[in-house]
């Protein structure tokens, strides 16, 4: 009896402490308006978010011993959070309610800070516009150190965008620490993808929803390994470029690394026949071709192209244009090249073309020269209306690098790598896209711990939307890597220019 009496008192005391802490803000005599938005990290003010996104937790970078956050949906649902460590974490269920009640409207977040001996400060409300179009539920990206040549641990993860679930897809320690790159999905389908592994367990690993198959695509006819894959929408073909890529290190502080190709050509893999074939040039000028991308109807192959470099070339004068060629998918043959965007005439260079699922818009990265935009601070995203040919710089760019990007399956969301946070590490940003004139303010992938980006040294590489969770994991890759790779054959195409 005595024991329980003590426990009771302890409980009352603890409850009292909590109540006292919880009521502290009420003790402030007055509330004065700040007359400005609060500084929050990540900056979610004014962003457009999908109705199924995970809670946008944030950190308040304002002075205060205690903060009171009131989130109000358009339909009046409210949630109050009190925090003394300036970290705001929304419970997933209540966040969903807030989003449900704000679709097509905005979610308002009021922040008030309290400091002993001072009047409370109420900041202007942070508003987030909640779109009606959902985003694909998963994002797949490679997580690695953003530098130079070395790697130790490298992984590809799939992250739920509706909560904070993160599931490994590939972890290189299970495959002799091999390097992994270029995961690519056919129309955002988690059951149809491939990725490349380099090293002792090397090869291209194809997943068909059930089986993982290790295939060696490199044939003697190809100058180098196959990289930068692009699935033909039919799922039968995958276009690759075969590149000899090298890197050099700058000695001026403005730049770190220069990655460039010495030669590169396009090849196509016929998944059904397990055959590679070339995408040859008819032109008398020898070109370097890279970054293939199919139009959603499968009738065109877009890619980046520049004249073949010669020994002693000036890497700053290498400029890639955006080019396309028609494709007959029944015959597997190509037509002539046509320049879609003449970057050379603007003294610029194009990389990473990516077309919206409706085939109307093409987003590419434009930078001063070369092919590896992630190390170019000036790299920005541009949009071409493929119907009108009108091209323009997107409003979602920053002063830092914007590089790899991909579309959601409904064509309403664009995810892109941006180094706007610190200039070194890329983070995935999401932008709502309605038309070239109507693009929402982008927001960074929300994290359970909002201070994560401040201390995470790794970079998010090649973010890709997927419509569901991939049914394969690191151990499946380890098992597939133990099997002898399937070797792709080579098919000589004599009638590649018939169309």
């Amino acid at each position: 009896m005595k024991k329980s009496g003590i426990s009771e008192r302890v409980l009352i005391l603890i409850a009292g402490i909590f109540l006292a802490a919880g009521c502290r803000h009420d003790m402030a005599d007055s509330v004065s308006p700040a007359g400005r938005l609060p500084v929050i990290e990540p900056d979610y003010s004014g962003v457009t978010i999908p109705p199924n996104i995970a809670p946008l937790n944030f950190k308040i970078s304002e002075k205060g011993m205690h903060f009171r956050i009131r989130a109000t949906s358009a339909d009046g649902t409210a949630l109050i959070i009190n925090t003394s460590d300036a970290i705001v974490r929304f419970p997933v269920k209540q966040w969903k309610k807030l989003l449900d009640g704000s679709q097509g409207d905005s979610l308002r977040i009021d922040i008030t800070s309290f400091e002993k001996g001072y009047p409370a400060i109420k900041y202007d409300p942070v508003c987030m516009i909640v779109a009606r179009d959902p985003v694909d539920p998963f994002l797949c990206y490679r997580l690695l150190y953003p530098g130079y040549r070395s790697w130790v641990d490298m992984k590809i993860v799939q992250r739920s965008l509706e909560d904070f679930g993160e599931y490994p897809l590939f972890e290189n320690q299970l495959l002799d620490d091999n390097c992994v790159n270029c995961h690519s999905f056919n129309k955002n389908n988690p059951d149809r993808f491939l990725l490349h592994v380099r090293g002792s367990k090397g090869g291209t690993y194809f997943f068909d929803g059930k089986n993982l198959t290790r295939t060696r695509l490199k044939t003697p006819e190809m100058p180098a390994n196959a990289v930068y894959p692009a699935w033909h929408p039919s799922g039968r073909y995958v276009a690759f470029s075969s590149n000899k890529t090298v890197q050099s290190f700058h000695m001026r502080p403005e730049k770190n690394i220069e990655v460039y190709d010495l030669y590169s050509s396009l090849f196509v893999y016929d998944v059904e026949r397990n055959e590679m074939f070339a995408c040859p040039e008819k032109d008398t000028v020898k070109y370097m071709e890279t970054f293939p991308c199919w139009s959603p109807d499968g009738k065109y192959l877009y890619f980046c192209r520049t004249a073949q470099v010669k020994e002693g070339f000036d890497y700053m004068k290498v400029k890639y244009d955006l080019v396309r060629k028609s494709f007959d998918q029944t015959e597997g043959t190509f037509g002539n090249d046509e320049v879609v965007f003449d970057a050379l005439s603007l003294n610029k260079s194009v990389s990473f073309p990516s077309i919206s699922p409706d085939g109307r818009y093409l987003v590419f990265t434009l930078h001063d020269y070369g092919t590896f935009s992630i190390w170019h601070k000036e790299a920005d995203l541009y949009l071409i209306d493929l119907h009108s040919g009108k091209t323009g710089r997107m409003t979602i760019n920053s002063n830092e690098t914007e590089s790899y990007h991909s579309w959601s399956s409904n064509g309403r969301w664009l995810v892109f790598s941006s180094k706007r946070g610190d200039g070194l590490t890329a983070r995935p940003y999401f932008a709502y896209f309605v038309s070239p004139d109507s693009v929402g303010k982008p927001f960074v992938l929300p994290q359970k711990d909002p201070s994560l980006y401040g201390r995470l040294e790794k970079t998010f590489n090649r973010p890709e939307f997927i419509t569901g969770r991939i049914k394969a994991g690191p151990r499946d890759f380890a098992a597939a890597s133990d099997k002898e790779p399937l070797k792709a054959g080579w098919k000589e195409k004599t009638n590649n220019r018939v169309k």
Partner: protein
Amino acid sequence: MKKGQGNRKDDLSAPSKRVFPAIEAGGRFAGYLSVALLIVLSVTYLSFFGESIFFLQENNSLFIFSTDYFQKFCSEPGGLLVYAGNFLTQFYFSSFYGSLIVSALIMLAYLVFRRINKQLKAESSLSSFLVLLPSCLLLLLQTRYDFYPYYILGFILTGLWFLITTAPGKGTRRYILTGLFPLFYYLAGSFALIYIILYLVYCLIYGKGRLRYLLPTFLILLSFLTFLLFKDLVFLQPVSHLLFYPLFLYEYSSLTEYLSLFSGVLILYPLLIKSADVATSKIKFQPLFSLSAKLVLFSLTLFLLFRNRDPGAADILRIERSVYNREWDEVIRQYEKSPSSNIIGQYYYNLALSEKGELCSRMFYGRQSFGSLSLALARDDEQTYRAIYFYYAVGLTGEAHHLAYELMVQHGFRPENIKMLIKTELIIGNYRIAERYINVLKKTMHYRKWAVKYEKMLYKPDLVNSDPELGGKIRLLPAKDFFVVTDDSRNVDLLSEENPGNRRAFEYRMARLLLDKDLVEIGKEVRKFKALGYSNFPRHVEEAIVSLVNVTGEFPDLGGLMISKDTDQRFLRYFSDLKSLRGSKAQIENGIKKADKNTFWYYLQFGTMKSAVGKGGQADNSIY
């Protein structure tokens, strides 16, 4: 049956024997004396001779007080053991603290084995000798640079777990304790392998009744299931890692052999105790026998401790410590006091001279037997962390940053790579990234103060510019960009071209010409000194000019500077001194005056250059 007595039929504990109290007390006293002697030996030896080992180990890890750092170690069996080891390693910045920690661990190992002896009811005089054996072996292992505290912790933990699971008790209790094996495996990693075999040996020797076979069978099945569970469901680690981490981390290291030897002693310990009991039961003068055995053990330990010492490596690491602390005068003093025949020592000497601006005026005061190879080290796996300092010193900050980053990726944060990253990011002006690293370093015990100093410079270019070290490096940066190449002499030349005011780079170039004895090229370069702000030639350059004039009879274009009279006089004195000496090169080397030896002339005449040791060829920079 009394509580805790256990089922006699199934009891695995050794039978008890009666011992006379006086003998027991005497034995205990001898035991205490032995361990006291061991601790004194450990503390004394490690305090005096362990400095380089502690320095190296402390610099090979960086313990960070953060959840992220802790979580990294939770993802694999044995990770927490390494975490605990790294926690201890952070105190190794002081060899005194280091010696206390290691000695305490050795003491702990002794206590664990003493307790094991007690549990095994060891009574022979030889067993009191055997209990000292693991501690002595651990002390000997501690003379190795790659023997980290987590090894000792792992062995101690294995011993403790053995004690727990073999404590007298009923069958059910034993099954429960043995059933906790997955927890032990998670904590100890590959040390669990040693435990399994140790337990089997114990059961076979000391086990009785059904449990003698049932418990080992249970443990084998459980360990097999645990391994499968860990491999297929819990941890994303390869099989080899799950089996051998952290005990046998380095495949080709001789440490593996020593660790295997020690593991063998541990595994066979119950057998050794049993054998000792049997073997010594017929010896008449057991205390004398025990004392002799211990004396032999201590003498052998002492002998091996000193035999295993590597004074050359210790010297290099002592210099390295001064380099890390940027105590250039100390580096120069140490090297000139005990010149090294090792390229690293010579490299650090030249680096210190360069940082002091004395490269071309003092470099021949110390031994230069590697020629220009000792100006910059090869950027291979072994030497990259040392090669960085050349790039930082000369003004190739981008390359220093590049290499520091590569090292961080390969080995994680270490004090020197994160410090270099912070400094180079501040020089470059990447304050947001510098801040991230500073925040990491602020969460360490020993480097917090250092981090706070640099934190004050964040987002304040004026402060960075006015800092003697960082500001100086900013002024050494190339004005125009270029790509770094694998040939460092070319890098220095490119830097000189792109920042003609970089005296550091120019002196490195001149030092290379001096070390290569390239008088013709020196003659072409000397005219540049005045334009670089020199009011007189550095001592060794003057010596080279005098040599050139002496050989060719022609004066090079001195660009407006003069050769000092003192140098002319020294040259005449050098030759007159040399004439008075006869005999072999070795005899001349012994007989020549120090003032004559510390000259370019002596190097030109007698200096031999070793071949391109350790220089890598053209690297393949292909990335796909």
